């Protein structure tokens, strides 16, 4: 996307996008790929929601430290999403419970929803991107 394409005061008239994240960070490339697509996609002024379920909830875990492993810690970037107008973050209640996690353990503010609400979110989306 070229910088010249940018217009100030762009309107939110795009489609409803839902990114579904189901993998932990680092073990596979899915988490990082998803984050990059979200950031690139944010330039297109769509209505974006992010869902984290299964091991995907671990992407948002506080205190990630990759110094000993030699990969880049990309977890701080989730805190930049707000500036990209990506503000709707949902996590699965069942996935959090199964892993003994609470919202206190996460680096960003999220809305915790149960499986039924997650299903509605998927039904409601016009485009679903799965990672």
């Amino acid at each position: 996307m070229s910088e010249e394409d940018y217009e100030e005061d762009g309107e939110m008239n795009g489609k409803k996008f839902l990114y579904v994240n189901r993998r932990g960070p680092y073990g596979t490339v899915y988490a990082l790929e998803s984050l990059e697509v979200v950031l690139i996609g944010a330039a297109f002024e769509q209505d974006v929601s992010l869902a984290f379920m299964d091991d995907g909830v671990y992407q948002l875990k506080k205190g990630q430290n990759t110094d000993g492993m030699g990969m880049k810690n990309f977890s701080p970037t989730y805190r930049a999403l707000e500036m990209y107008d990506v503000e709707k973050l949902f996590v699965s209640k069942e996935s959090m419970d199964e892993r003994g996690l609470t919202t206190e353990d996460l680096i960003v503010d999220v809305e915790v929803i149960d499986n039924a609400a997650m299903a509605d979110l998927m039904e409601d989306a016009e485009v679903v991107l799965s990672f």
Partner: protein
Amino acid sequence: MLLHTVNKSPFERNSFAQCMGHAKKGSSVLLIEDGVFAALKGAANESVVSNAIGDIGVYVLGPDLNARGMTDEDVIDGVKIVDYTGFVELAAEHDVVQSWL
């Protein structure tokens, strides 16, 4: 003796469950990459690990644990944390390594 390694999340694959089902008394299990999720307190499969400790040596790779936002305080009591050198030593101490990929 045998060293088992698991690099997949117990929530996603049955590698960990299979490993624990095949790990005999006196053998060791090393959790690496997404396998470290099996070592965490408060998670669904905690009892599988805590019941095995004593019969089986359960180890977790520290750098992989820290990368995922966990520290020694988050792991189940009795699970030992090793660094890369410890990983190599474990591999050297055991006759055979079985990787549950």
